[in-house]
């Protein structure tokens, strides 16, 4: 073992603790660790990190400090995070995890003991190595900016998770959420603003063609409209007449101006310069059946349902008209109210919108951490410091 990498011992010790935590989780599969609410969430995260910082600053050369600040411990803790969170990458929230995953203690990886142990290890290792490097060691500034950024972001994220308030609610046109909404954890939350949904608007792209070749679908490239043409799989398709909003009556489309009505197109199909089919296309929708065009060679031509282009909610917030869209939430008093979705079955005919109100008091800490990390990695990109090049 004489040429074993330096600092490997603490990593092996951590691996033993991590495996122990995993065994406990397997023996007690319903054990779930959650951070408490504010202020205990801050205490629970800042306290161990503070101790790590103090240790690194006051006793930089002590054996325990060297062990806790070792690069191999960082690797072990990060591998621990990876080993305990991977199930979420394969069976995320919303997809049922298979039974064997529950049996090995990772049915709910993010609140499992091994995951929490690994994350705590990362935070303590970052804290001790950061403080120790501030006292002694090369390239202090760049090391500190990257690792302090990470540390602040990890603490902010972990502590913020404990104090995060998320409340999802559905509003109908003309409706308001009333006095309070129910948060994810069951608490009743008073929103910072009186909200009324005036109108929900969904704009859609024009539809495209779909060719069904015995179950293999290929899509056209053109957005359909009056006089549009498209070529696909040896076919030339031209639109002869166009109804921007239609309903099917007696097997034929008729103009029907109603939100949610799909367009219809009368098309003519040519192959090798010969007309092989002509007729109406219309996608199935909440207002009627589909019209497709069978071709002589067994293939079928369809019109795809138009895809959403933009959706927005016109709301009144304390009487003031505001537009909320995806990527543009309404921000009031440290809260942000996001437009998440709508009744997708009804599409543009939807009269409801799904919102989520979020209050995240730890956000400034997370953004500070991310900012420092970005500055640090940009400096690293400009002039990398490699561990191997150190004396």
């Amino acid at each position, binding site marked *: 073992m004489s040429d074993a990498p330096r600092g490997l011992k603490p990593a092996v010790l951590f691996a033993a603790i991590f495996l122990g935590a995993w065994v406990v989780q397997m023996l007690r599969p319903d054990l779930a660790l959650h951070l408490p609410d504010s202020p205990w969430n801050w205490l629970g995260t800042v306290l161990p990190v503070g101790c790590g910082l103090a240790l690194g600053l006051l006793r930089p050369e002590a054996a325990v400090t060297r062990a806790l600040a070792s690069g191999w411990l960082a690797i072990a803790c*990060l591998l621990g995070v990876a080993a305990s969170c991977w199930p979420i990458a394969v069976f*995320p929230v919303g997809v049922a995890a298979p039974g064997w995953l529950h049996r090995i203690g990772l049915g709910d990886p993010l609140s499992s003991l091994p995951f929490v142990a690994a994350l705590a290890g990362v935070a303590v290792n970052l804290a001790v190595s950061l403080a120790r490097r501030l006292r002694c060691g090369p390239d202090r500034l760049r090391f500190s900016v990257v690792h302090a950024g990470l540390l602040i972001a990890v603490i902010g994220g972990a502590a913020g998770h404990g104090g995060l308030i998320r409340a999802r609610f559905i509003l109908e046109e003309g409706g308001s959420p009333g006095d309070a909404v129910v948060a994810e954890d069951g608490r009743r939350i008073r929103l910072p603003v009186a909200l009324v949904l005036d109108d929900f608007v969904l704009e859609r792209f024009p539809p495209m063609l779909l060719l069904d070749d015995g179950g293999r679908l*290929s899509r056209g490239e053109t957005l359909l409209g009056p006089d549009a043409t498209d070529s696909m799989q040896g076919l030339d398709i031209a639109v002869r007449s166009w109804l921007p909003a239609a309903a099917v009556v007696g097997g034929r489309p008729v103009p029907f101006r109603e939100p949610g009505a799909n367009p219809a197109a009368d098309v003519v199909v040519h192959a090798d310069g010969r007309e092989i089919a002509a007729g109406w296309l219309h996608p199935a929708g909440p207002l009627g059946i589909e019209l497709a065009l069978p071709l002589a060679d067994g293939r079928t031509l369809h019109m795809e349902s138009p895809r959403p*282009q933009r959706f927005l909610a016109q709301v009144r917030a304390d009487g003031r008209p505001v537009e909320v869209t995806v990527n543009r939430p309404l921000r009031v008093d440290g809260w942000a109210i996001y437009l998440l979705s709508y009744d997708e079955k009804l599409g543009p005919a939807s009269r409801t919108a799904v919102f989520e109100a979020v209050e995240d008091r730890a956000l400034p800490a997370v953004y500070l951490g991310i900012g420092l990390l970005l500055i640090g*990695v940009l400096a690293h990109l400009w002039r990398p410091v*490699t*561990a191997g090049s150190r004396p």
Partner: protein
Amino acid sequence: MSGVVWWVELLVVACWSLAAICASLAAARAGAWHTACRAATALGLCLLGGLLLWLWLHLGRPPLRTLGETRLWYAMLSVTAGGILAWRLGTTALRLPMLILGTLFLCLNLAMPQTLDKTLMPALQSPWFVPHVVDYLLSYAVLGLSAAVALWRLLRRGTDVELPFRLIHAGLPLLTIGLCLGAIWAKEAWGHYWAWDPKETWALLTWITYVCVIHAERDLRSRPRLALGVIAGSFLVVLMCWFLVNHLPSTAVSVHTYTKG
């Protein structure tokens, strides 16, 4: 539209294959072959850059939505980044890997031509979309180069790890920037900077892999063959995050997967 794309891709493949041949000859005889290699590489880059610009204008959206579109960017970025890094690091060892990577990804597009359309889902209509995805593709390009160089050296029984490590020191910061931009965008659009979406989790696993590699660098340098193997193998996690995640059961609930057409 996809017909035009296919023909331009073929032209670029021809240019870069020619450049690769010139690069191999230049290794033995300097002079005119170097110039020919540079000219063919630059011509291919101009054609590909022009194609992406044309697509952007023609589609009315950034051509970054489908897997095929991201492969076009990847090809361009691996050759551009390879060229810049080769100049910064003063090496010619990147020429062949960057040309081979670029050509390989274009060949994938030639074999699987994709349809292009003008639609873009509302969530992607954000100023964060382009910087986030382009930065990620750039980091994948640089990490791809590190893996290609490592694999090449591993196969040729080489032991020089300097270049692959230097490439990782460029790729990891880019990966970190992509992760941070994604987190800020997610917060702006959905209220959560980290939602443990499958793609996000794979991105974290990729990041962890490369952070581990640079933290083990000092010890890995004394075991160069192991180091080359680790660097080449780490790219498998990138491939998982980029392509294979589309085939997992989790894809149905991911907001991140690229559309196939």
